[in-house]
């Protein structure tokens, strides 16, 4: 008992430094990664899928998009992402399905502005993960949306994240086909950015 009491301050010191080490190291990584990045479409992929009754569903990608992000080394929550997607570039492997998705019933790509996402908040959720909240605009309608991101790789001036999230179609007037096709669209995306 006496022994422990004598050693208690040392124990506290060790515990405190152990706890402090993890965030300190992660912050260091972030500081190194801080900067403004431009998304490289050739090294990125914007995939989506919609499930349907009876199994299976529609899977595809959007081929044309552009964007940039800012990693704030000092305060991760002040980081920013902005991305613009041309819904007319949808590719599901079936031309008539693509035409339908581009068309009036879904994105109305000819008449409506491109799909845009911009952050309102970034929240760190782990060593290499974060949640990004923002506004997603499709068919000219702004709705809050959030995605989960995971750092995949950082090499030289490039950084790669996997981004996933689920968006409901109905708030964007795109509920066509429901309930044959799910209201939920699952996004599985990989974005590589190059630091400027």
């Amino acid at each position, binding site marked *: 008992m006496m022994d422990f009491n004598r050693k208690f301050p040392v124990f506290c010191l060790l515990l405190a430094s152990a706890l402090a080490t993890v965030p300190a190291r992660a912050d260091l990584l972030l500081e190194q990664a801080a900067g403004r990045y431009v998304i490289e479409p050739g090294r990125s992929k914007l995939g989506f899928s919609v499930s*349907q*009754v*009876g199994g*299976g569903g529609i899977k595809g990608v959007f081929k044309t998009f552009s964007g940039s992000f800012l990693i704030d080394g000092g305060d991760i929550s002040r980081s920013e992402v902005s991305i613009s997607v041309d819904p007319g570039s949808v590719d599901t492997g*079936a031309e*008539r*399905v693509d*035409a*339908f998705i*581009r*068309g*009036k*019933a879904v994105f109305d790509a000819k008449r409506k502005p491109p799909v845009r996402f911009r952050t309102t908040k970034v929240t760190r959720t782990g060593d290499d993960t974060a949640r990004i909240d923002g506004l997603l605009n499709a068919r000219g309608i702004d709705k809050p949306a959030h995605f989960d991101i995971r750092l995949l790789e950082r090499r030289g001036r490039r950084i790669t994240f996997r981004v996933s999230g689920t968006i409901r179609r109905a708030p964007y007037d795109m509920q*066509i*086909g429901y*309930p*044959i096709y799910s209201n939920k669209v699952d996004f599985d995306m990989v974005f590589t950015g190059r630091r400027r």
Partner: protein
Amino acid sequence: MLRNTKSGYGLVAIFFHWLIAALFLGQAALGFYMADLPPDEALVFTLFQWHKSLGLLILVLALLRLFWFAMNRMPELPGPMPVREKRAARLAHLSLYAAIVAVPLTGWALVSASPLAIPTFAFNLVVVPHLPVTVSEAAEAFWGFIHGNLAKLALLVALLHIAAALRHEFILRDGLIRRMIRPARE
């Protein structure tokens, strides 16, 4: 009352006749209307799904009707009718029986053959599997041709059937139409 007799139709046969007649005519109108609309409109997608649901309903009713047909006698046609007219009438009836099965079936084949692979979710209640047919643009076009033309042929026979019934009612005045309104008594 329920079953057919030698001289008239029972309530069940009458019920099937009018219900399927109404559904079939409505379905034909819907089908020809939607087939010419631009396929990327939300309304058109919804109309196609209604057409699929109603078509399957007609198919189920038609099979029940055929079962009932097999379990019942066919009432005799009025004695004074010439043999040639009787044969024409029977041929029309049998053709219409065939049509209410074949037209929905070919529509189902058309849906199944389409590379769009849109599931059939009848009345948003029952997932109906696709028929085991070849899936290709060509197969879809083939079944589309058969489905549309069979429907037109069926409408033509239905028109002749209606014209003949009206002739019996207003020219021959033999009261034949009443047989499809009032159930026969034992």
